[in-house]
């Protein structure tokens, strides 16, 4: 279950606060996956108590978008901590889908990869199994295929420790890179933080999901929760 709250001392009108929280949630807490399961209790509350003396922020205030974006970045930090503490997790993985024709499609594809048990076990096993990533992209529940054209698709692993080469290309314009540097792939997959980059090449929208690997420990924890 995900529970949380965010509080602030700004005065924010209730409808504006609701819009801010929804926007932030759609780009943070709704973009994380540990195991693909949705709880009956997931809740994020936000309270603004107005203890700071300033004009109330409404949707028309010049500060509205700035505060909304600050709340979003803040919510992302909090949401990412949940993934870092995923049951049995040894890796924190950012799945970034860019150059999509719509935000919704980018998000759907990122979610599909993030929820794939086979992708997650491969990440745990440090196996550069890009075929599973492609498979998860292929069954993503897109309403149309406008965003997904196989000859424009690029998939890479990205190192997050400043080592070079930072990007290891797995698929370039739909063509698998058969001579992948397996040693470099193993180095990247051994990192506790890494990124899977998917470039759809069909537009300008992007979305990110944050996920983790799936380890033996996850089964140990959840085979004995209720008792």
């Amino acid at each position, binding site marked *: 279950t995900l529970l949380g709250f965010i509080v*602030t001392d700004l005065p924010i009108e209730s409808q504006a606060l609701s819009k801010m929280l929804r926007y932030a949630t759609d780009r943070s807490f709704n973009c994380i996956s540990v195991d693909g399961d949705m709880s009956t209790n997931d*809740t994020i509350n936000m309270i603004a108590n107005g*203890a700071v003396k300033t004009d109330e922020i409404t949707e028309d205030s010049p500060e509205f978008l700035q505060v909304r974006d600050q709340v979003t970045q803040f919510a992302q930090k909090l949401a990412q901590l949940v993934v870092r503490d995923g049951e049995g997790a040894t890796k924190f993985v950012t799945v970034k889908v860019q150059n999509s024709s719509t935000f919704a499609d980018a998000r759907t594809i990122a979610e599909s990869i993030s929820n794939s048990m086979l992708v997650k076990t491969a990440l745990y096993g440090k196996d550069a199994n890009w075929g599973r990533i492609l498979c998860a992209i292929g069954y993503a529940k897109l309403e149309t295929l406008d965003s997904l054209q196989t000859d424009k698709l690029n998939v890479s692993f990205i190192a997050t420790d400043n080592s070079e080469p930072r990007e290891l290309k797995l698929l370039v314009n739909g063509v698998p890179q058969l001579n992948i540097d397996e040693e470099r792939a193993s180095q990247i997959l051994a990192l506790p933080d890494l990124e899977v980059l998917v470039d759809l090449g069909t537009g300008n929208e992007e979305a990110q999901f944050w996920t983790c690997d799936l380890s033996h420990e996850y089964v140990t924890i959840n085979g004995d929760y*209720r008792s």
Partner: protein
Amino acid sequence: QSAKYAAHVPKSGVFPQGFQVGSVASGVKKNGTLDLGILVNTNKSYESSAASVFTTNKFKAAPVILSQRVLEEKKGKGINAIVVNSGCANSVTGEIGLKDASQMAKLIDEKLGATSSSTLIMSTGVIGQRLQMDKISKGISKIFTDNSFGSDFNSWLNIAKSICTTDTFPKLVTSNFTMNNGTQYTLTGMAKGAGMICPNMA
């Protein structure tokens, strides 16, 4: 686990004005750790605003249903407390669960002297078990009677601990921001979650 704790749990922080938090080990959790927390808004110069996003799971737990009702009734205004408990999710507990959740909120509203519902509720833990209301009630009373509320770092860290289940570290984030008009403000957030995590809240 200790490495994760060291890497992700802050050692100090600045917190927003006008909020106080308290927590207690009520005994719902078998291991005697913190499992009940209350946040209250103490600022009276402005009627607070509140908003929430909730699970879209068809089976919504009692605290979710109750909190939705409170927010609708109050139109997102005048919400001055949040109560959280861990160890029991009060989920799939039917009318009795709703009654228990309502009682939790009512106990706090009474302590705060609220004339209408002003408390949101969150519960986490095992599904399909009834809340041990004797322990929860005593715990709520204890926080108020002992005046366990504080606005210091440890009080905030403890409330973040009080909603942990299989979490290996409490999740507490706090930051100061400056708006373009020069006004400074603070955001503080806490979260819990380690498993059953793929929210789609609305």
